[in-house]
């Protein structure tokens, strides 16, 4: 168990900036998830922490000790890779034992530790098998086992679930959460999957184009996104974004939105923004069918099971509305939508959220 602190980390590959001034902190026993689209630099960040690459600038501290220049084996971290990276020529038992063997641990202690890890992860029956004889989920477990036998100060996960099918992934998410509670270890986890991030993390760091966009608890990232990127990236179905100009009218401020051909009432506190251009973000669950300022022709109904997502089209734009599964609307109908101004997220011209 340890604390990870990263200060002002930058890295370029062949003249291209991959990470720019990234500073984050993972507390003792924290489960921090770095969330971002592919190519945002999140895997690079993990490789820098592990010592597999060298940063151009900045420093990395594990438990107050600077490790920036140390080789991977002296950093006391363990890493689980997306491809599992099991040693194909070794059995499961040998794979689990390898990090202990490389650290010169005595044979009896190694076999005790291997047995314990195997029991914890349900791998006892497979110790003699080679990785190629295992299923994806079992391989993933071996990879996790190889990381935890050593009891490292810090666990690093690089998209460990993205090669598994949907059902297994869900199972492993639950297992990982349990494992984290049990070991109360410090974990840094990288993913592009927001569901993984929301379910696993005690804290989420959203990364895009090499820069930290926002750091916060999962709920905070969802409810109070720092900018348009975070608002658009987190949440499925995606948030509705309405661009327009604020006009102060007799009944209060309104957003004149040509894209949806709408005149949307804004909350009273938006009055000082009169004449400004801004973007209003409305989550699909904050819209409902009924008389209101927005609407359009029902183009598509996505049936997800417990609920439906309606896609309404008007002019060049469309709206996503989350409704109950028993909704009777039919494609081609023209519907209107009620809104709740209190749930609006307002973003200024630079894309930053305006907090009231």
């Amino acid at each position, binding site marked *: 168990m340890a604390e990870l602190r990263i200060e002002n980390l930058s890295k370029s590959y062949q003249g291209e900036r991959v990470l720019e001034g990234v500073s984050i902190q993972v507390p003792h026993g924290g489960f921090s998830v770095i969330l971002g689209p592919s190519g945002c630099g999140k895997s690079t960040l993990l490789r820098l922490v592990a*010592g597999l690459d060298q940063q151009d600038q900045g420093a990395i501290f594990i438990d107050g000790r600077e490790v920036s220049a140390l080789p991977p*084996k002296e950093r006391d971290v363990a890493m689980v890779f997306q491809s599992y*990276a*099991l*040693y194909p*020529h070794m059995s499961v038992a040998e794979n689990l034992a390898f990090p202990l063997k*490389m650290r010169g641990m005595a044979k009896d202690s190694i076999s005790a530790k291997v047995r314990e890890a195997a029991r914890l992860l349900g791998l006892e029956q497979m110790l003699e098998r080679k990785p190629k004889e295992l299923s994806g989920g079992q391989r993933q477990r071996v990879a996790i086992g*190889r990381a935890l036998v050593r009891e490292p100060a810090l666990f690093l996960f690089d998209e460990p679930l993205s090669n598994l099918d949907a059902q297994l992934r869900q199972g492993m998410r639950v297992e990982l959460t349990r494992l984290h509670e049990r070991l109360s270890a410090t974990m840094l986890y990288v993913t592009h999957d927001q569901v993984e991030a929301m379910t696993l993390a005690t804290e989420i760091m959203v990364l895009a184009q090499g820069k930290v966009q926002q750091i916060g608890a999962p709920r905070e990232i969802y409810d109070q996104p720092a900018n348009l990127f975070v608002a658009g990236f987190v949440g499925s179905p995606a948030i509705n974004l309405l661009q327009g100009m604020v006009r102060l009218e007799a009944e209060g401020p309104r957003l004149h939105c040509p894209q949806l051909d709408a005149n949307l009432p804004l909350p009273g506190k938006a009055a000082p923004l009169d004449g400004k251009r801004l973007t209003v973000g409305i989550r699909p669950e904050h819209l409902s069918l009924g008389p209101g300022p927005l609407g359009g022709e029902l183009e598509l109904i996505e049936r997800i099971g417990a609920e439906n997502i309606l896609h309404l089209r008007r002019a060049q734009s469309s709206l996503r509305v989350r409704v109950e599964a028993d909704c009777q609307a039919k494609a081609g109908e023209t519907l209107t939508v009620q809104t709740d101004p209190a749930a609006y997220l307002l973003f200024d011209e630079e894309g930053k959220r305006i907090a009231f």
Partner: protein
Amino acid sequence: MRTPGEKLLFGLSASLVVFLSLAPFLWFVLTSLKSQGQVTAIPPTLWPEGSLHFYRAAFSQYGLLHFLGNSLVVAGLTTIITVSVAIFAAYALARLRLRWSGAVLGLLLAVGMFPQTSLAGPVWRILQSMGWLNTYQGLVLPYVTLTLPLGVWILTIFFRELPRELEGAALIDGCNRWQVLWRVILPLSAPGVFTASILVFIYAWNEFFFALLIMSERARQTLPVGIALFQGQYTMPWGEIAAASTMATLPLVIMVLLFQRRIVSGLSAGAIKG
């Protein structure tokens, strides 16, 4: 699916290629088992009597064992040295972030294509000034130089195919670079190492030109040169030459048969992503 006609055509052309490649080999194996009279009989006979006379003669009168020994030493040393050096060179070229690794590989290929005759003179002079003519090292040195490009290429391609994450895992698990190579990369590259070893061995075993140039003393000559010099001023001992050629070919055939699978997988590595 192939049509029966295509299958027939394929079978016929494959048999033709196999027959054409094997015919000379079959002929000298058969010749080696003939009697003295049968070898020069007109019309020629196909099936031999099965006499081992020529084998005995090749060993006792022509010193075949001696040449076999020389070839084994030279080809064996060449293989060990070339493959050991190639492993390190290929790992560096495949994995370390070197600026000129592409250029180095291209240059190696170019060096491998140098006509041997253009090198013969300088090589002979260098070896002479070192006093290495008629020594094992005098032949092993040019062989290593000539086979290294092949070895480095085969192994570089092999190492590149291995996932980088494996090395990352090994480094994090406590290995240094040497241990990564020794404990993870090499065990996984066994087919590539085998392929490189066998191809290098075959090259050194069969090489004639440099062997003739550098080993002028009978005592140091290797098999190809030794066999070529079986003939006297007035005699052409066909039977003994056939017996010696059979003895020279057998070790290669046995080796390739034993490692056939590994060689095929080694040669086709890099061709398809698997």
